C-alpha cells in the first residue's frame, strides 16, 4: 500500500502553482487503499450496508465469492478492475468483513431497500 508523499506531489505538481495537499491522504486504487475499512466505507458500504443491497458485515463469505462478485460475476453489482482493487486487497476485505459485528436486528440477506425512505 502506498501513501502519497509530499515529495511525490511536489514533483508532480511542479508545473502548476502547487498548494500542498495533506500528507495523510490515501489514494483509492489497487495497492493504494489504506486498509479494508477504508475500502469498505469508500465503496462497498454505499450499497452493502443494506441500503441498496444485502448487509454483508459479519458474513463469513468465501474469498472466491468476493473475488467473483467484485470481478463481475454478480448482478446487478458493478465490476471492479485490477487497477481499482487488487486480489490481495479483496482477500483482506473478505477477512475484515467476517470479523465485523453484524448490525443488530438486521436480516443480513434482506436489503432495507423495500422500506427505506428516499426523502425525509
Amino acid at each position, binding site marked *: 500500500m502506498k501513501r*502519497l508523499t509530499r515529495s511525490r*506531489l511536489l514533483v*508532480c*505538481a511542479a508545473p*502548476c*502553482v*502547487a*498548494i500542498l*495537499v*495533506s500528507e*495523510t*491522504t490515501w*489514494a*483509492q*486504487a*489497487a495497492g*493504494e487503499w489504506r486498509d479494508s475499512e477504508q475500502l469498505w466505507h*469508500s*465503496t462497498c458500504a*454505499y*450499497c452493502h450496508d443494506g*441500503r*441498496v*443491497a444485502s448487509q454483508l458485515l459479519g458474513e463469513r463469505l468465501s474469498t472466491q465469492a468476493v473475488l467473483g462478485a*467484485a*470481478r*463481475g460475476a454478480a*448482478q*446487478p*453489482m*458493478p*465490476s*471492479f*478492475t*485490477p*487497477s*481499482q482493487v487488487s486480489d490481495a486487497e479483496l482477500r483482506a476485505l473478505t477477512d475484515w468483513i467476517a470479523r465485523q459485528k453484524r448490525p443488530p436486528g438486521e436480516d443480513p440477506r434482506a*436489503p432495507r*431497500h*423495500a*422500506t*427505506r*425512505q*428516499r*426523502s*425525509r
Partner: protein
Amino acid sequence: MQSRDILPQGVSSASFARALSELAQVVGADYVVTDPERLLPYTKSMLPIDEREYLPSGVVMPSSVEHIQGVLGICNRYRLPLWPISTGRNFGYGSALPATRGQLILDLKRMDRILEIDPVLCTALVEPGVTYQQLHDRLAERSLALWLDFPGTGPLAGPLGNTLERGGGHTPYGDHFAHACGMEVVLADGRVLRTGTGCVPNTDSWQASRYGYGPYLDGIFTQSNFAVVTKLGLWLMPAPAAHRTVMAQYWDERDLGKAVETVRPLRLNGTLQNVGVLASAALMLSSHRRRAELYQGEGTVPDRLIESAAREQGIAPWNLIFTLYGTAEQIAPNLEIARRAFEGSGAKLVFDVHEGTQSNELGLESFSLLNWVGGGGLAWFSPIAPARGTDAVKQRELAKSLLARHGMDYLGAFTLNGRDLHHLVPLLFDRTVQPQLERARQCFADLVTEFTDKGYALQRVGVDNMGKLARLYAATNRDVNRMLKRALDPNGILAPGKSGIHS
C-alpha cells in the same frame, strides 16, 4: 506467447505479440493484461448487447504522461486502436467497453493524483483516475469548505471522465463541462497540449480562466476521440452557509407541462440556482419497491398500481426537487417566491427533504433503480427537450408509448437545466433473460429513431448506438468530425467509433 482469439482489427497475432512486448517495456509487464480472466471486469456492461462483439484485445495501464507518449508511439507503429478510460464507470452507456471489438483499453486509473486544490479561487486540478470519493475525502481532510457536484454514481466515478462525457449533477455546478477549466491532452503524435491559458508558460491562471486566446478548444476533446485527456481543471462550489431542499409535488399526472412552465422562469431569473430534478412516480418508487412486488403480469405495470403504491410512500405523480443555497437571509425571500409560484400552479410543497446529490453528500442510492427489475440491465435513453411544458409532455408520451410497446416501464425524470431539460429514461431489464435483452435492444433502437425523427437530439448514447446516432445527424457534422479526426489522429488509433467518429 498464448494464442489469442481477440486481435485488433487488421493486426496479425505475431505483430500484436511484438507490440505487447514493447508496451510491457514502457509500462511494466504487470500493467499489460491480455489474460481473459483478468479482462473480465472491463467487459461487464449493463447494456442490451452481446459483449462478445465489444471485447477488448487487452488492457494497458500507464502511470504517467511519459508512459502514454510511449504507448501512443507503439500504437501508431502497429496501428493498434486504443480506447482510453478514466474510471470506466460509464454505467448504462457501456461502462468500460470500447465501441468496437479488439481495441486495447488504455486504463488511466493509475494516474490518480489530485495535483492541486486552491481554496482561494476554489479550483482543483486532477488526473483521470481520481474519483469523486477521493476528492471529497481530500477536501474533508483539509477542512476546506468546498462542495463537489457529482452524478448518481459519485463515489465510484470520477470528475475527469464524467466531464468528458458531459455528464451532470444537481447543484448549481451541475453542468460539469461548464465548470471545468483547462485541460492537458496528449495528442496522438505524443505532443502535449494545455488548453485555455495553460499554453502560457508559467501561468497561474490555468484553472481560473477558461478561454485564453484564440479558439476555445476544450469542447472538441469531450465526447470525442481526438486526444487522451490527462489533466482537468475543476471549479468547486464554495460551501453555502445554509441550504434548504424542497419538493414540489403535482398530484395530477396531467400536470407535467404545468410543472415545467412553473420552474423555467424561476431557473432563468435565478430564484432557483441548481439543476433540480422532476421525477416520475415510478422512478421515485423504485427506491422503495421492486416491480415484482406490485405486478407479475404481462406488459408494463398498470399506472393505477404505480400510483397507489407511490401514494403509500408519499410520492406524487410528479415530484420536483430543488434546493436553495446561501445565507438564511438570502434563502428566505427566494423560498417565498418559489412557494407562491409552485402553490399557485397547484403543487403541494414538502420542506426540508433530503437529497444528497443536491447537497454534497456522496451515495449510491441511485443503484436502487437496478432493483426494480433485477438482473443488471440498464440503458440510459437521454434526449434533450427545450424547457417547454409542451415538449416535456410530448417526449414523455412518446417515450412511455414506445416503452409500453415493448412491455417496459417508464421511470423517467427531467433535469432542470434552465432553457433545456435532459429527459432521462432508464431502460431496465434482466440481462440474464435473453428475450428481455432483445426487447430492450429493439426498444432503444425505436426510441432513437422516433425521437430524432421529431427533431429531438440526444445528449449522450451508449457504445452500441454511437454509429447509428451519428448517422442520423447532418452529413456536414460527420464530415467536420472526420476532418478533425484525420488532422489530429491520422492513423486513427484513438478510440475508433467513439461518438460514431472514425478516421
